[in-house]
């Protein structure tokens, strides 16, 4: 039975519409209920995938190339689970967060967070299961518009400027992507991702399409030097939104990039392009970390940390570019490492943004100088921050450690030792800005107005995410076996 697949999209969308229709106080209750139901559905989907293998569904019963096909394999599933787990905790958190929030348009933010967030959730689920290039374009726009809507909820000058910049970049990115789709359709007469992958040859059209789609998706993923929109947007949004954006939304466009790289363009990619992408990754790590070290505001530091951490995802490309043998050990290894990094960064970053939200609720500011004495007054929050920091730095036994270990192993394994210094320096710089962030928390508190108490539930959600980011390091083997269902990292015509 695959009836769970349409429900993955239907359920959040239905919740969003209900939240929109039931005004005021009802929206949060419906929102939380929908989140719980969606998370349960994803669990069921996981069970179904493990028992009966990869799924392919023809929407409308037409089948590609006439209709739209949906496909779920391990890679899709791990992203669905990531969204469900993080989304559920953020939903629980957001419900109480907006009650204590003291910024502008409080009531509106509390009410309208839900329809936008549930639309975003449904759109991300639709994205992870789609196997159709044009369908992915429409879904990308849904993701983009709902994410921007979430950023601008409070309507202040900062969020409006950041939201506009984000929107313009996202739109330019999806136009680049759409141009690539149009070129591929013109050349091959189908929009099915896998069908195009089987037909594609390395000519001017496919190279142009590859360049356009990669550029567009890099804009949306905020990879250096196209990251300029991310820090203001992620830093000025409300905390639950920052967590959603940094943990999930940038990973959605990266997921499409992975799909394109392995399923559409394997015969077109060249080592030159791979190395260029790797170089962008290295640049992201250095630039993002150095900027993070310069920040005085907590949420800006965390946002620049996202810019840096996204860099690690790029080393997959030089390792796998132009690889003829799809079953290569290193290809599997770097792919597993990259997925592991996606997961552990998502969990750690969501947790750390939620911690920042708790600090803002308590102190009314996110200046790091106001964090003095926080370890004594909000020990649970600081503990969550420290746990998430361990994962971001890549210390054992966290998920971040496994991820960086696998990536390092693979780049050395294929002899591209020049990426290794970036990984090492990146780890050191991460440690630097994370200690800089945590240091004031352990100083003697300033005498002055105390902190407002924060609801215990919020601290528990934050801690749970931080512990999960460590925990996936311990159960990494199981998770990474799950990713390999349906063999998503393979070169068509190569390994299998």
């Amino acid at each position, binding site marked *: 039975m695959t009836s769970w697949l349409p429900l993955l999209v239907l359920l959040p969308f239905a919740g969003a519409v209900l939240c929109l229709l039931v005004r005021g106080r009802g929206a949060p209750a419906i929102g939380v209920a929908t989140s719980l139901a969606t998370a349960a559905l994803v669990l069921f989907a996981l069970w179904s995938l493990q028992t009966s293998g990869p799924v392919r569904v023809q929407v409308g019963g037409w089948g590609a190339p006439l209709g739209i096909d949906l496909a779920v394999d391990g890679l899709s599933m791990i992203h669905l689970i990531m969204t469900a787990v993080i989304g559920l905790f953020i939903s629980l958190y957001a419900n109480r967060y907006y009650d204590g929030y003291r910024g502008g348009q409080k009531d509106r933010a509390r009410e309208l967070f839900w329809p936008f967030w549930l639309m975003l959730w449904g759109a991300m689920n639709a994205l992870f299961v789609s196997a159709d290039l044009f369908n992915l374009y429409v879904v990308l726009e849904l993701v983009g518009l709902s994410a921007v809507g979430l950023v601008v909820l409070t309507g202040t000058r900062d969020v409006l*400027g950041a939201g*506009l*910049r984000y929107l313009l970049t996202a*739109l*330019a990115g999806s*136009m680049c992507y759409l*141009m690539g789709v*149009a070129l591929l359709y013109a050349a091959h007469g189908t929009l099915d991702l896998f069908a195009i992958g089987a037909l594609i040859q390395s000519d001017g059209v496919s190279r142009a399409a590859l360049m356009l789609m990669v550029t567009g998706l890099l804009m949306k993923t905020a990879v250096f*030097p196209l990251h300029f*929109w991310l820090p203001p947007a992620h830093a000025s949004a409300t905390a639950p939104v920052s967590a959603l954006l940094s943990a999930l939304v940038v990973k959605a466009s990266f997921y499409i990039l992975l799909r394109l790289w392995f399923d559409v363009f394997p015969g077109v990619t060249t080592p030159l392009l791979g190395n260029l992408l790797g170089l962008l990754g290295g640049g992201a790590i250095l630039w993002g970390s150095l900027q993070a070290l310069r920040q005085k505001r907590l949420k800006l530091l965390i946002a620049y940390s996202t810019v840096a951490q996204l860099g690690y995802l790029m080393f997959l490309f030089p390792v796998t570019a132009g690889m003829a043998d799809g079953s290569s050990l290193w290809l599997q290894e770097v792919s597993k490492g990259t997925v592991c990094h996606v997961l552990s960064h998502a969990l750690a970053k969501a947790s750390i943004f939620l911690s920042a939200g708790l600090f803002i609720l308590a102190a009314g500011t996110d200046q790091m100088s106001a964090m003095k004495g926080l370890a004594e007054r909000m020990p649970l929050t600081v503990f969550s921050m420290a746990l998430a920091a361990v994962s971001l730095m890549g210390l054992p036994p966290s998920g971040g450690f496994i991820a960086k270990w696998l990536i390092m192993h693979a780049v050395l394994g294929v002899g591209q030792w020049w990426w290794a210094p970036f990984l090492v320096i990146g780890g050191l710089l991460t440690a630097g800005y994370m200690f800089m962030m945590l240091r004031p928390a352990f100083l003697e508190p300033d005498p002055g107005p105390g902190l407002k108490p924060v609801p215990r539930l919020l601290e528990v959600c934050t801690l749970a995410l931080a512990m999960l980011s460590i925990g996936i390091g311990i159960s990494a083997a199981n998770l990474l076996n799950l990713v390999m269902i349906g063999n998503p990292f393979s070169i068509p015509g190569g390994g299998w």
Partner: protein
Amino acid sequence: MTQELAYSMTGMLLFSIGLFGVFFVPHILRRLMAMNVMAVGVFLLLIAVAKRNADPNPDPVPHAMLLTGIVVAISATAFAVGLARKFHEVSGETDLDGEGP
């Protein structure tokens, strides 16, 4: 030069001009217009692709993509104009400060 090639080449030029505008022009409305110019570039290519056929009926799939694309572009533009108006109301500015990229 065939008619389709003229359409698609114009589309490509418009797309590139629009891409330049989105990133290198400061005024918000102009950037938004530039995004729409990019969109028109894509739409011209889709029209040309649909017409390549010897059949008197053009290929309906690019037409459907084009119609969907227009609605998406209109929606996004309206949203952006709404944001820009509010931004102008709150800040009095027409440019986004701290130019990217």
